[in-house]
């Protein structure tokens, strides 16, 4: 490939590619703003701006943010994993299983902290299993994590059958009311602990991505695995660690969900992997790895939450699935247009 000399004058090509890279950086915020605006104005005839029932009313915002806690907690780690070129489809079932175990412990009298710690450790063990199958046994990530998806789901369902009454309370045991505190109780500005923890998690993961060796190696492995290996990076170890981290945060998300719902629903995490994939796609993470950004994925997660909650006010529930599918395909197109560098001869 012969390149021209490097002049200091900006050629038209340079300017258009600078423009392009600016679009890449900011488009997602624009999309978020557009979505918010759409849902804010769509019912303006019926409800007052910022008033009760409006998309941007304080109550609705709080509800949305509280519901967004699990995906926000999880998607940062999920992004890191995808940057390294791997995927984890079992996060939804992992989340459910963790929710079930956590709720079960609370129901049986465990105090908050021990229950939390045990749940997190369990999550890491589950991530360890994923890492073992995908990285060590070299099973394709999609198939390997589909297997664990079934395993985790199965175990969760065996502990607790599906249904709303699952572990809520039984004749002998009562779920203590304080289980709600983490995910519902107003701590500051109407938002619960879980929300602020999620914010902290985002901050931590952004730091990990930008300032730690794990973040750098994830990008190196995803970007050019051979170069990474030649530089002495232990690719197996790194990818395995990433799976464990995803498992950890899946547990945190599950625990938050259990707290929110006051029970452990073995199906509560269903679809979480899909939401994460959409968030990650919207945020511009390449599926081949190497590129990706935690903040943009979080914005993508917010977009999904806005779309799902917003749509609930506008369309009947049975339109939701089509909406989600369309968002996913839209994200695919967006990702394709923006991330794929078309090879120019």
């Amino acid at each position, binding site marked *: 490939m012969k390149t021209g000399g490097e002049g200091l004058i900006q050629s038209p090509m340079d300017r258009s590619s600078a423009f392009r890279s600016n679009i890449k950086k900011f488009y997602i915020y624009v999309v978020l703003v557009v979505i918010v605006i759409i849902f804010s104005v769509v019912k303006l005839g019926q409800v007052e701006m910022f008033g009760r029932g409006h998309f941007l009313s304080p109550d609705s915002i709080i509800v949305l943010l509280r519901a967004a806690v699990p995906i926000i907690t999880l998607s940062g780690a999920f992004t890191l994993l995808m940057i390294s070129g791997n995927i984890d489809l079992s996060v939804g079932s992992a989340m459910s299983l963790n929710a079930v175990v956590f709720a079960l412990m609370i129901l049986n009298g465990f105090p908050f902290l021990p229950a939390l710690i045990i749940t997190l450790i369990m999550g890491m063990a589950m991530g360890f299993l994923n890492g073992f199958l995908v990285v060590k046994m070299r099973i394709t990530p*999609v*198939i390997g994590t589909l297997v664990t998806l*079934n*395993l985790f789901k199965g175990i969760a369902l065996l502990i607790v059958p599906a249904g709303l009454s699952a572990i809520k309370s039984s004749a002998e045991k009562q779920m203590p009311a304080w289980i709600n505190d983490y995910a519902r109780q107003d701590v500051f500005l109407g938002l619960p602990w879980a929300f602020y923890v999620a914010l902290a998690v985002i901050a931590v993961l952004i730091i990990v991505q930008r300032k730690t060796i794990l973040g750098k190696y994830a990008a190196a492995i995803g970007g050019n695995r051979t170069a990474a290996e030649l530089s002495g990076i232990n690719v197996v170890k790194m990818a395995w660690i990433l799976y464990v981290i995803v498992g950890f945060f899946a547990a945190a998300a599950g625990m938050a969900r259990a707290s929110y719902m006051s029970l452990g629903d073995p199906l509560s995490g269903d679809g979480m992997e899909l939401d994460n994939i959409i968030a990650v796609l919207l945020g511009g993470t390449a*599926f081949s790895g190497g590129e990706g950004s935690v903040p943009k994925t979080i914005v993508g997660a917010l977009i999904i939450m806005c779309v799902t909650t917003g749509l609930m006010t506008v369309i009947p529930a049975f339109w939701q699935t*089509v909406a*989600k*599918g369309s968002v996913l*395909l839209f994200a695919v197109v967006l990702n394709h247009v923006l991330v794929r560098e078309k090879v120019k001869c």
Partner: protein
Amino acid sequence: MNVETNQVGKPLIGSRMSNESFITLIMVGVLFVLFGIACAAVPNFYLPRNMLNLLTNNWYLIIVGIGVSFLLITGNFDLSVGGNIAMTGVFSVYFCQAANVSQNVLANGLGLPYGLAVLLALLCAMSIGAINAFFVAKLKVPSIIVTLGTMMLARGIAQIVTQGAQRNTSLPDVFGVVGSMSIKGTPIKVSVVIMVGLVIAAYIFERMTVPGRRTYLIGANPEAARLSGINVVKHLTFLYLTSALLAGITGILLASEFKAGVSSRALGYEFDALVISLLGGVSIAGGFGSVLGMFAGAVILSVITSSATGLLLSPNWQFTLKGVATLIAILTQRFALDKRKG
């Protein structure tokens, strides 16, 4: 001349058997072992009626498994089949429900004759396949993502048309025929016959036709396939359309059997189709596998699930069992192949 003419050309059995046949044979062996264990451990397992059921009660999975297996052989997924089954079934109902007969929206349809309704519904099914083909073959987007999206799209359409529930009224009498019909004098349903016919056709396709051979070539080495003149985009489009058509047929049959188009039909079938393919030795890693293997995988699944039922385990066991079985299958197949290669 270093070729012994009188020996060349005769495929020797044993070490000369293709890897595919080897694995299929292994999985069939596993099947018999499992079957034996089940007969020993589960009460009433060894009954002629039961054994027939084992072969046939997964008929719907086997039909979609055909399309899923072929795509897996080329290295691609099709997760849209479950949603497609629901959507096509719902459409087949909607199109031939009598028009303007009731206040209830769900009881009114387009009033078309049944045959036409079926045809249109199948066309709709194939349009899902077309979307898949466009993104995967043309735009080269990873198939796992695309087909997750079309899965939701298809199911979502089913949900919209049924308003989240189902459509089961104002249907012409002919509607319920094909799904519940049996061969005269036997308990074998027409659906099962169709399934068997499709499996045989698929096997012939796989072993004896040019497009079947192309499927394996693409899976074995996409680059060499392209340089050998195979139009990969065209072929993948063909496979996605076929998979969608098969899902559509299944949807029609199921809707007819239950005389209803239900939006929650076939939930999870896409994963089960994947499971039986994997159990049967179909590998995503390179042009390997056979529909017969998939069939064996379906029977293995049958044995597992009906043993679970027979042992009075709750249906919730199925997920764990599927996960564990798939894992063991993958690892066993890899181990066996490695041993064979020496």
